[in-house]
Each structure stands twice: as C-alpha cells, then as structure tokens.
C-alpha cells in the first residue's frame, strides 16, 4: 500500500497565499524582482514602500493596495523575516516540510482575522479531530475497562484546552497585545476578552442535546457519548452551519477569546498542519512526543460513592464468590492512632488491600483498591487501530473489549 500524498489534495485547508513554494508564485516573485530597481528582497517591500511613500513617490514599485496597518493579521511575506517564528519552528523540532508560512497561519486566531483563508480554523478542526482520535484510541485500548466518566476526564487531561494551553506556554509561545498586520507573526494573534466579562453568564444555547432548556432533567453519562463532545461537555460545534447564523459566529469572534482558547486552537492547528504537510507518521510522532509523553495518574481520577456495594455487585456479575473483608493485621486498637490493614477476599483470592485508621475506613479503602484493580486492567502488548496504517504492520488482532462498568 502506497502512502497517500497528502499535499496534493490538501488545498482546501491551505489557502493559495500560504503555499509560497508554488511554481506560479515563484515565477511571479522573480518577475517582480526583475522589474524592480529596489535591491531589497521582495518580502520587505511592503513595509519599505510604506515607509518611503510619503517622501518619494516611486514609479517603479507598485503602491500596495493595503498597508500593513490595515491588514487584520500579518502578511504572509513577513513569516520569512520573523526570528521568533523561525525559533519556534526550530525549538519544536518541526519537520522541514512544514513551511514557516503555515506556522504563521497557525498563530492567527479567528478572533484576529475572521477570514478562514488566513486564520487557523480549518487546521484547528483537523488537528482537534486527530488529537482526540489518537487520545481516545490510546485510552480505550490501554485500559479497556475504564468507566466512561474516567475516560472523559482522562481525555480532558490529555487533550483538553487547559493542557494545550500549558503546552503552548511550555513551548515559549508569546501573545500579541493586540492583533494586526504590523505585528511580528511569531506572536499568537488573537483579540482578548474585555476585562470583567463574565464568561459563564449566558446559558448554553445551540447545543446538540435535545431539550437543552430543561435544567432539572437528568443527564445520563451514556447520553454524553451521543450528544456531547469528546470531553463530555456540551457540544456547540455539532450544529450544522446552515442552521447557525453567520452573524452569530461573527459576533462570537469579534467579542474576543481567552488566552486558553487561543493557545488551544494554535496547538490543534499545528497538529493539523503537521498532518497536512509532513504526513501521518510525523503527526503520530508529534502526538506521542508532546501529548502521550505527559504523565497522567489515571488511578487518581476515580471517585466512588459506595465502593463496597459496587464491588459486591461486580462479584455477583462476574460469578465470583461474594467479597468478604478480613483484618490482615492491626496495631493500637484502643489507642489514639490505630492502624488496621484490611483485605477484601473473594474465596481464597485477595482482591484488594488497604490501610485505615478505623475498620470502616480500611474496609472502604480496600474496596476502592479492589475496584481500581478491576477497572485499571491493562492488556499486554497493546496495539491501537491506527497502528495498522503503518507500512508492513502485523495482522490485526482484536483488542480486549469489556462488558462495561458496574451498574448498581
């Protein structure tokens, strides 16, 4: 199977302006250079002519239609001149096939430039889908028994906006005070939310969930799979674009976005850009190096209300002997600081063991340990479905699929 050449059909996401390497554009550049008497490189022509225009009315250089100050985001020619952009490219060890112009486009938030030919929205949509797809398949294949709430929490912890913002900060990304054509393209361009704006003021309208206005209705966690987004939060983007009015989107962008939203959309757009320019293996490598390498203690995401009851239901479901709590050892029973070590046994097998300052505490904690032992089962030699896309992959073996979490 030959690898797909993604660059050929990726023109829907990349505007013509971004593809500076095109033969036609190069041709135009060179012809311009021959006509011009100005020895400076063409990329700096725009600002040079802007600076010189009031004093010397030159006939050779055609006067630009827009000055830098009128543009909502930096022009594409500025990307090659920005030291910050080149430094960011080198620091992230991005593939050389990803040009600086696309990296500059990843840094333009829709709140700065509403034209989707110049902002990072198309790339961010693709990157978000890739990130959540890779994360979810990793989680579900590595821990096939995880409850749905824990999967949602782990998804948010791996690929949620807060994590992406932290990543962008660790990469040394700087924010522009205000977007504009004259700003260095190495800065993250976005319009900030006005100070004092209450972000949670208006109720959520336009989610994909039916009867969303009913506040008192119970929202089951299973319905989140259908109606909510990847993190179990209300999904706003699921509405078809024909229904949502363009003006509503425009007002949303003109109001400004938070640093968190802008940084997250930059990281997503970068993921999409790597996928389009350098292909799937590079995108997968980027994901593994930057997302999966972050340590997440999944055992800490659990919270049980009645662990002893859940465990007894689990043992009944799996046809094990009913669990019995037994004292393994204890010290200082009548003292101020007793310590009890309690184990939970099903027949001869120990399911969990824990320590507590009272018998009830030790028993509850032991039941929690037993339930975590069940839920955190991980098969050996885990493979994810997307590993089949590699060249010469071994034949696929079905992954372990569990019955599901305990329902009481």
């Amino acid at each position, binding site marked *: 199977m030959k690898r797909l050449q993604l660059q050929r059909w990726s023109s829907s996401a990349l505007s013509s302006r971004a593809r500076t390497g095109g033969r036609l554009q190069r041709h135009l550049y060179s012809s311009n250079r021959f006509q011009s008497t100005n020895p400076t490189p063409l990329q700096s022509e725009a600002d040079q002519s802007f600076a010189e225009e009031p004093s010397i009315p030159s006939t050779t250089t055609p006067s630009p239609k827009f000055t830098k100050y009128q543009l909502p985001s930096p022009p594409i020619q500025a990307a090659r001149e920005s030291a910050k952009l080149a430094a960011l490219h080198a620091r992230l060890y991005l593939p050389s096939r990803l040009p600086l112009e696309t990296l500059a486009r990843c840094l333009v938030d829709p709140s700065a430039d509403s034209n989707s030919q110049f902002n990072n929205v198309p790339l961010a949509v693709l990157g978000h889908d890739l990130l959540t797809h890779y994360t979810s398949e990793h989680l579900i294949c590595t821990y096939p028994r995880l409850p749905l709430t824990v999967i949602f929490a782990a998804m948010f912890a791996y690929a949620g906006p807060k994590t992406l913002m932290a990543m962008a900060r660790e990469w040394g990304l700087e924010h522009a005070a205000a977007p504009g054509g004259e700003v260095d393209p190495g800065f993250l361009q976005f319009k900030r939310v006005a100070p004092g704006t209450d972000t949670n003021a208006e109720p959520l309208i336009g989610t994909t969930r039916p009867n969303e206005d009913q506040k008192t209705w119970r929202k089951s966690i299973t319905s989140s799979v259908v109606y909510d987004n990847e993190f179990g939060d209300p999904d706003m983007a699921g509405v078809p674009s024909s229904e949502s009015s363009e003006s509503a989107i425009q007002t949303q962008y003109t109001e400004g976005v938070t640093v968190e939203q802008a940084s997250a959309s930059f990281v997503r757009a970068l993921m999409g850009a790597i996928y389009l320019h350098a292909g799937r293996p590079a995108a997968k490598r980027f994901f593994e190096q930057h997302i999966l390498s972050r340590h997440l203690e999944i055992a800490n995401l659990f919270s049980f209300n009645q662990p002893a009851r859940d465990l007894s239901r689990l043992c009944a479901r799996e046809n094990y002997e009913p669990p019995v709590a037994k*004292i393994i050892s204890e010290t200082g029973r009548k003292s101020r600081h007793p310590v009890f070590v309690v184990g939970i046994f099903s027949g001869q097998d120990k399911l969990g063991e824990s320590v507590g300052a009272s018998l009830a505490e030790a028993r509850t904690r032991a039941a929690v340990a037993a339930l975590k032992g069940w839920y955190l089962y991980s098969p050996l030699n885990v493979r994810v479905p997307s590993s089949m896309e590699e060249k010469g992959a071994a034949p696929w073996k079905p992954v372990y699929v569990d019955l599901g979490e305990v329902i009481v």
Partner: protein
Amino acid sequence: MAAFITVSKRPILGLPFLLPSCDSVSLELRRSQSSYRRTKQRLRVKPDASFGLSSDKTQDHIIYNPPSSSPSVYHTPTKFLPSDDIRRSLRTDTTADHLNTEGLPSVLKSPLGKKYHLGPSDITEIRKLRLGDPITWSRSKLAKRFDCSPTFVAMVCEAGPQKKEIQKQVLEAVQSRWGAKRRMAREDRKLRKETWGRDE
C-alpha cells in the same frame, strides 16, 4: 547489665535503681541513658533473612525485600484477569503472599449472610404496618420482627409523608442544639469520609 553499671560515672547513691538490691520493676522505670555505644548497640539489628546467602544457594541471587506499603492498583489481581491473559498462568504458585484466609478475623462482627427468607406476603405486611402506624413500627422494629436488616425495610417501602415531616423536625431540633465545634467536627467527618472513595 554489668557493663551498664560500670559505665555510669555518677555517684551510685543518686541512682538507687542501680543498686543490686533493686528489683526488676524499678529497673524498667529507669531513665534511658543514651550514649554512642549504646545507641550503636541498639541499632545493630539482625538483617532480613533475604539479605544473606541461603545455605542451599551458593551463587548470587536477587535480594527482594520491598518496603511495607499498599499494593499498587495497577497490579491487577489474578482473579480479575481475563481467562486468556498470559499473566494468569504465570502467577499460579510463584506469588509469595499466601495468606491463610480462614484464620483471619472478619471486619464485621456478625457474619454477613443473606437469607432471602421473606416472600411477597411478608413484604406487603411490612408496607401495611409501616404506612399504618409509622410511630410504632419504625424501621428497626420492623427489621427485628421480620428478621431482616433495616436497609432492607428501607428498600421495600418508604415512610409516609407525616412521618417524614416529624423526623425532619426532630432532626432540626437536635441540630439546633449543636454548637460551632460539633457542627464543624461533623462536617469534617463527612468530608473525611468522601476522601476514602477518592483514595486520598
């Protein structure tokens, strides 16, 4: 003990328990006199059996003496492994923690056993009694009469609205007498119980 007496440089009359006439009871009550040599002597504990070479093995071996701690939750119990998992066969008899489960005492005082002895007629009887005279037939009394747990009574039927109202008023009256300390202690206890489920 002889060395202990000779080391002491203090006048022997000031330390009456060092006199040969003192009995064992007074010897236990003496102040501890720490010196370098005595501290070293006390720290000279016997090493764990796994540290040394065993008699039958003359070659090098791995010392496995883990510190006492709760087992990791990522270590799935053998019973929870799926039937086709290879770890199930690897762990058959090599695991060291073979506890005698029969000899261990239970946490609960009465052995937990479900009898399933109540039929539909008993349950209608419980409901009738509880709705008819909720003051007399409380949950515990019903549990005692039908030989079941109060939880089972609560599962089977709910108290009437008047009884709920009375119970709420009683609770409010009791709670109104609590001071700040007791209220805070109760809240803390509740918060502490929630941390058990989160394993903090």
